[in-house]
């Protein structure tokens, strides 16, 4: 997509992509609507020509016609609605995958200011809503067609009667909508209350272990009961309003039919229309309320679809965090990393195991973003083998420099599957994760493992990827002291000869590094071996050993 996508463009694009299905569906659903409109007409004709006159042949003929109409309307609905629903589902699928592709784009930037839950909702709910526009459109066009046919039939029977129906039905529906307006507002408030009750329940169940730990079960039950009762009160108020609205609409519809019967009955009595036509008119008046309310529904769906398309467009159009580069990565990476940007000034030689101690965690986070090219430096340069990272595509940068986050996510699947790489067993051993069965299952988000196990499997994955440059951020915070010492040795042995940067304040890890860089107040302040710095630098001791 070259131009920045807007909501309208997203919606149009989705519709254009499914035009074949939409056309077929509109045509066939119109056939269905006409059929529905013809049923009361045929009942009227049968009353007139067959029952009224006692004509058996006519009865057979008109029943046969009725059968053909049913066949047509049934077939039109089955094929037409199927094609329309398929178009909608396909459009939603296309948008869903497009949103995820944009979020996962190596250049990043789509997550800025959006929570994962919100992005997931856009990829599911909003995509579904735009898909639903397809369904609304074919249903809407078909309803319009049905209304037109009904109108023609009515006006042909009698102009005054036709006008009563055609002019009376829309105000009736408008009145119904007006009555529903305050209801919608209340129902919004009600849904909020209900959602709140449900959220409180989920929250309490989610914190069940904590509740049990402090013996707070009874207090929690009491809290839920209060929320549930408040929700009940709100629900009952809304339900009463809704019942009132349903009753009113029912009464209005009844009065409308009485009006049609009054006008039609007088016309029939005066001989202006036949008995059958009177029956048809009453039937059609009832039937037209269907497509007319479909139109109101279509309108609401379109409004929601437009809003959803705008949200999708905003994600697709979000600016990239970093631009793509202008040249490819050279074939072989030696692994010399120089950071001379935004206050940092240090270099890791090829094959070096370098420790970086940042007294302020924010500095560590900043450095990691620069190394993984998640942002470009404000001033200065970050170089790989003397080549500035800004000239490389972020995907290429990450092939060469793997920045393994401290809170890396695991994915549903087996442990070995998560670790991957050429030699997962060696990586698991180095990460102190060899006691975790490689075949064990990692639940969604890794929740079937303990915090310490999760962290070690994530570390094993980073080691197994075996990149030319590996940056590890606090890889052992959830690991006990005994294992941490083992992990430090394991990482050192496994990364022999390849550049590794350990961003950590853990003395056990720093003890195995070749050299340590100290970052204080946003800038590189000193460098030396762990023992050297620990002996002579009070700031270093505070950051690492206190």
């Amino acid at each position, binding site marked *: 997509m070259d131009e920045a996508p807007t909501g309208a463009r997203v919606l149009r694009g989705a519709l254009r992509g499914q035009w074949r299905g939409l056309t077929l569906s509109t045509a066939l659903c119109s056939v269905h609507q006409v059929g529905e409109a013809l049923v009361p007409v045929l009942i009227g004709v049968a009353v007139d020509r067959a029952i009224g006159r006692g004509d058996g042949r006519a009865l057979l003929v008109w029943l046969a016609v009725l059968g053909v109409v049913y066949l047509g309307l049934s077939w039109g609905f089955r094929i037409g609605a199927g094609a329309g629903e398929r178009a909608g589902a396909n459009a939603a699928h296309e948008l869903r995958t497009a949103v995820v592709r944009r979020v996962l784009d190596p250049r990043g930037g789509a997550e800025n200011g959006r929570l994962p839950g919100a992005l997931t909702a856009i990829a599911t709910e909003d995509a579904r809503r735009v898909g639903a526009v397809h369904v609304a459109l074919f249903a809407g066009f078909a309803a319009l067609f049905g209304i037109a046919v009904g109108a023609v039939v009515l006006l042909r029977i009698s102009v005054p009667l036709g006008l009563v129906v055609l002019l009376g039905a829309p105000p009736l529906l408008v009145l119904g909508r007006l009555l529903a307006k305050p209801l919608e507002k209340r129902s919004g408030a009600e849904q909020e209350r209900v959602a709140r009750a449900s959220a409180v329940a989920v929250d309490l169940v989610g914190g069940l272990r904590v509740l049990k730990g402090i013996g707070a079960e009874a*207090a929690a039950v009491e809290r839920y009961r209060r929320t549930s009762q408040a929700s009940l009160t709100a629900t009952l108020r809304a339900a009463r309003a809704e019942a009132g609205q349903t009753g009113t609409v029912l009464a209005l519809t009844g009065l409308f039919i009485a009006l049609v019967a009054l006008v039609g009955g007088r016309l029939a009595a005066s001989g202006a229309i036949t008995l059958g036509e009177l029956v048809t008119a009453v039937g059609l008046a009832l039937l037209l309320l269907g497509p007319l309310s479909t139109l109101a529904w279509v309108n609401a769906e379109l409004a929601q679809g437009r809003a959803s398309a705008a949200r999708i467009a905003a994600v697709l159009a979000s600016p990239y965090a970093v631009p793509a580069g202008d040249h490819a990565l050279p074939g072989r990476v030696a692994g010399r990393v120089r950071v001379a940007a935004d206050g940092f000034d240090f270099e890791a030689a090829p094959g070096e195991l370098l420790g970086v101690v940042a007294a302020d965690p924010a500095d560590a986070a900043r450095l990691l973003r620069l190394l993984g090219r998640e942002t470009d430096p404000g001033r200065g340069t970050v170089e790989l083998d003397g080549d500035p990272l800004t000239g490389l595509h972020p995907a290429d940068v990450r092939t060469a420099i793997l920045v393994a986050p401290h809170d890396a996510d695991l994915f549903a699947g087996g442990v070995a599957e998560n670790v991957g790489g050429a030699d997962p067993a060696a990586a698991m051993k180095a990460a102190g994760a060899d006691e975790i069965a490689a075949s064990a299952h990692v639940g969604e988000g890794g929740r079937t493992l303990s915090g310490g*196990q999760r962290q070690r499997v994530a570390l094993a994955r980073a080691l197994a990827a075996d990149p030319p440059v590996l940056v590890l951020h606090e890889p052992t915070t959830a690991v006990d002291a005994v294992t941490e010492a083992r992990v430090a040795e394991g990482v050192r042995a496994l990364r022999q000869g390849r550049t590794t940067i350990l961003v950590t304040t853990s003395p056990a890890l720093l003890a195995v590094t070749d050299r340590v860089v100290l970052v204080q107040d946003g800038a590189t302040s000193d460098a030396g071996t762990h023992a050297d710095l620990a002996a002579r630098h009070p700031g270093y001791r505070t950051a690492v050993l206190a």
Partner: protein
Amino acid sequence: MSDLLPTADGPAIRAVLGELLRPHRALAAGAFALLAVATGVGLVTAPALGRIVDIVADGRPVDAITPVIVLLAVVAVAQGAATAAGLALTSRLGETVLARLRERFVERALHLPLAQVEKAGTGDLTARVTGDVSLIAEAVRRALPELVRSSLAIVLTLVALALLDWRFLLAALIALPVQLYTARWYVRRAVPLYAKQRVANGEQQQRLLDSIRAGATIRAFRLENEHNGRVARASRAVVDLTMRGVTLVLRFYMRLHIAEFAGLAAVLTAGFFLVRGGSASIGTATAAALYFSNLFAPMNTVLVLLDDAQAAAAGLARLVGVASLPVREPRPLAGPGAVAATGVTHAYVAGRPVLHGVDLTLEPGERVALVGATGAGKTTLARIVAGVHPPTGGTVGNGGAHLVTQEVHVFAGPLADDLRLARPDATDDELRTALDTVGALTWAQALPDGLATEVGAGGHRLTGAQSQQLALARLVLADPHVIVLDEATAEAGSTGARTLERSAAAATRDRTALIVAHRLTQAASADRVVVMESGHVVETGTHDELRAANGRYAALWAAWSGSR
């Protein structure tokens, strides 16, 4: 997942529903009566229209239709009023019973023994409290009133048809076998299909959330294509299942159309013969045809609602399964403040013990640190002492231990409410004192609305360290004699861990405490250190004694303090 929470069977569901409905019998009768009146009144419309036809057919004066029109208007208003009242009462009944049921569910759920919930996973409980409750709420709100009204409409319309002439009823019933067959055909296919759809939808949602949440990791490891593919596959599976559902519904409607045609043709034919034979007027035949076409909508409604009803019944079975469990009183919290575990063995899987005859005694007021490698059995021992798991062998006496684990949970709502879960009657001053004890008062008061700040899901986000301090403040408020801390400082990172250590020390002051130590500084400040290895206690003594002993602990400490 063989240990899912119980699901109720038919008799159990009926028993619980009966119990919940009993106090509202009058309400139920009133709601039903009003809806029956509304439907009955509505049935006057068709013969009234038929009457107009007759008046015209007999060539009577135009004004003769006026009383009939007035009748139609009165019917419309009466039907509207009775429907409104009936629906209001129906939802009052449904919602009240539903509220009672969900409250009872939450009550029983929160009183489940933790070991049972751990086995089933909290996911099962969460799914029941969200998915199943909203499934039933939806059924109560939409399906129940519709079902009652439609069923009444069908029954009363058939009665009215019979009143016009019993032969009309006979003709109308021609459609019935087709409809019954179609309904059975549909439900048999729809129920498993919709179950599959729900699973696929949940999977898609989870896949999306997993991939989107892990965006940074995916980009770092260059897994973009793999995850795009995973999401596309999950989404495609949902599309395919949706289309199978659509096809099924459309075929269902096709069969219903056949039934409609058969019935309509039969009623018209019956009208033809009855009018020709002189036993019915044209108006009666018209009324019969109108009655029959009025049956389409409620018939379709009932048939469509069948699978909603099935789904709601399944949800109900899962809710009642938990709601009919007995409430167990939480274990008594009073006690002398001592812990004595003797010869404790434990095996999660029979034949593979993780603890081998551990003896551990804590004097009242003593602080003991547990040290050891992952898998040494520290956490298992801590949980047994806290009473989460009963030991496989040996005995444990404790003074009602409270457990704080590395799993932190901040309850959604004002911060003060979160704290009051531990002591509901605590004053604001007591809350502040508790926060101050664990060193959290400064940041808590600096929150946008102080202690009234909304925290937890959807509110102000607390850091990992703040959440842990909050957990410790709750502990101070609960004021137990014995505290078990398991990895309470693990996830905070090194800098936060030091602050938390101080908070934990303050919270455990003057209490008996068993601390699973992560950082050895925690062990250094304990009264006694217990070193575990492979399910055995291998060293025990004060920090200084163990350092002097030059054993495992001494080696660990040397590595930790960088003094090697």
